[in-house]
């Protein structure tokens, strides 16, 4: 071997070593999140929330000195996209942990892949019960729909003392699991469901339902939806002369809901995960830091993205290795305070935490009550 050849071989070896170490320079968290299509607004908040958690962690030295990188792809809230994305995150990007900032359909499909590849996966705000049933590598930092539905029943039947209730249900897994939880516990709180209506996620005009609800003469309305359906629904209910309390859930939880419904939003109550008037330092700090980063006020989805990323980062720090099994065990043993409450998991990977009740007052979300009845809020275990 001539001198030049030896030098070239040496260079090639060093080169490959350098690039290998450059490759291991960061530790990666993967995220599937809808950035185009109908769920793009929620996706944007979830991504910004997760990015904020990563930036904060990197400012504190990352994972024991190694920088964290958040790798994300747009899944359009579609299982058709989330499955190849899950494969790409695991196979190509070699992420340590996956986070879903997406809806149930996409999250459920991706969770099976993360499970079978042995990569921990945390659902930030998707509600379908089957997600965590994929296996022991899948966790959820938000309430499963049924749990929040039960909290809604307690809020209406016991805390507000309203007994004649009309249920308006968004016809997707989110609305239907909420309605299931609500109906399961309604009788326990003396609630009589006088009528139930369903609507599609594409509906924005509720004139016929409003007319019919008027003749039902309810004491309260339990309506599931997202801010873009609930905003028009609430303003149309009020315009139709219905002034009984409207109780929603975390899907309403956005400044945008108040902007769309305007003065009609006043007095609307929701069950959610983020307390705007919280005195907990983690929540206060998140609310102000998010507004600086995003340029708009924090919502439930943003806080959920932030919480999921924070749980992942804490577990990676605790495990101290790139062994995914050790990271999974660390996630399962989580006990930390985040913007959405004190997070720990049951055996199925479902979160255990209190439900926040927020009310719209003077054009902003405010604290109304906390539901901490752990028996009522017990997440499913199988």
């Amino acid at each position, binding site marked *: 071997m001539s001198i030049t050849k030896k030098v070239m071989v040496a260079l090639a070896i060093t080169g490959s070593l350098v690039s290998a170490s450059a490759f291991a320079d960061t530790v990666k968290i993967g995220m599937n999140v809808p950035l185009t299509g109908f769920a793009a*607004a929620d996706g944007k908040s979830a991504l910004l929330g997760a990015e904020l958690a990563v930036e904060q962690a990197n400012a504190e030295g990352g994972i024991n000195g190694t920088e964290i990188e958040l790798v994300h792809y747009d899944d359009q809230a579609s299982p058709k996209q989330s499955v190849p994305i899950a494969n790409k995150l695991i196979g190509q990007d070699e992420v340590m942990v996956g986070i879903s900032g997406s809806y149930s359909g996409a999250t459920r499909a991706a969770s099976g892949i993360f499970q079978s590849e042995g990569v921990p996966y945390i659902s930030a705000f998707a509600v379908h019960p089957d997600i965590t049933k994929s296996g022991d590598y899948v966790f959820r930092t938000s309430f499963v729909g049924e749990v929040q539905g039960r909290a809604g029943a307690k809020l209406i039947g016991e805390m507000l003392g309203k007994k004649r209730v009309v249920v308006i249900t968004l016809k997707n897994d989110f609305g239907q699991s909420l309605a299931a939880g609500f109906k399961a516990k309604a009788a326990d709180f003396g609630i009589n469901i006088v009528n139930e209506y369903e609507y599609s996620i594409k509906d*924005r005009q509720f*004139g*016929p339902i409003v*007319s*019919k609800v008027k003749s039902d003469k309810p004491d309260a309305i339990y309506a599931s939806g997202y801010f873009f359906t609930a905003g028009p629904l609430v303003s149309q209910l009020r315009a139709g002369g219905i002034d009984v309390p409207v109780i929603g859930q975390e899907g309403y939880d956005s400044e945008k809901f108040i902007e769309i419904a305007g003065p009609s939003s006043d007095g609307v109550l929701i069950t959610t995960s983020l307390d705007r008037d919280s005195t907990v330092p983690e929540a206060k700090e998140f609310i102000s830091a998010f507004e600086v980063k995003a340029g708009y006020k924090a919502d439930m989805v943003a806080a959920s993205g932030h919480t999921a990323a924070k749980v992942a980062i804490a577990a990676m720090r605790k495990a101290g290795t790139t062994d995914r099994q050790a990271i999974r065990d660390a996630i399962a043993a989580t006990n930390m305070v985040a913007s959405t409450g004190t997070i720990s998991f049951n055996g199925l990977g479902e979160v255990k935490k209190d439900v926040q009740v927020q009310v719209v007052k003077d054009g902003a979300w405010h604290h109304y009550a906390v539901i901490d009845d752990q028996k009522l809020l017990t997440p499913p275990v199988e």
Partner: protein
Amino acid sequence: MLYVELLAQGLVQGSIYALVAVGLTLVYGLLRILHVAHAGLFTLGGYIGVLVTNATGSLLLALVVSMLVVGLLGMAIYRLCYQPILDKPPYVALIASIGLFIAMEEIYRIAFGPYGISYQNPPLQDVVYIFGITLRLGEVAVGVGTLVLIGALALFSTKTRFGTVWRATVTDPKMAESFGVDIIKVRYLNFFIGSALAAVAGVMVALLNNLVEPTMGSVPSYKALAIIVLGGLGDVRGTLIAALALGVIEAYGTIYLGNYLDRDAIAFAFLILVLMVRPQGLLGRA
């Protein structure tokens, strides 16, 4: 009273369908193109309506600006997108139109944000009582506005020379051309009027929902197609009747069938039923 109120709600919804579908049926009549991107123009109408109203405080000005801008854009779509491919088979234009529609939705998302925009002080929100039923002023405005616009269109097309030429061209483009009609001019007019009506619908829907989203056109994009098929493709009168009928059927269906079928399913079940009995559309001749 509930039945009357549902009827009124149905007619309001039907009026909006009518404003969107007329433009679509005009384009189909003239060019035999299913102009899916029409729903994208409807969305743009909503955006311009909200932006101009928020900036100036005048809904009327917003309506005029919206009709003008969207009308001109409709003409541009014809010139830049459809005219170069008119000699290709019809599905080529259809595919181009679908592509254009998706691109428009994403452009709105990038330009105006994914959250959608709302009126700062939504106009016409007061409630009025007519014949014992409650309606929002905005809903009354939709009904009256549609009546006035469609009435004006009917007068224009029957009482003016250009209107006669226009109708003749829509009915039989080849024959009209052989009589010396400037067919290009008629096409521009056609796109302008159809698009401007969609813009009005967009402003009205923005008013009723107080929300304009990038994907606002996704439902009209296919429902308007169902309506023009019901109306007997290219038939303006049939389209109007089909739009109003569908609005009313949906209003009753939402209440009495809503727990079994959603709004879209009701619409398409109605479409299938009518086509089984009258394959040529509601008013079409066999």
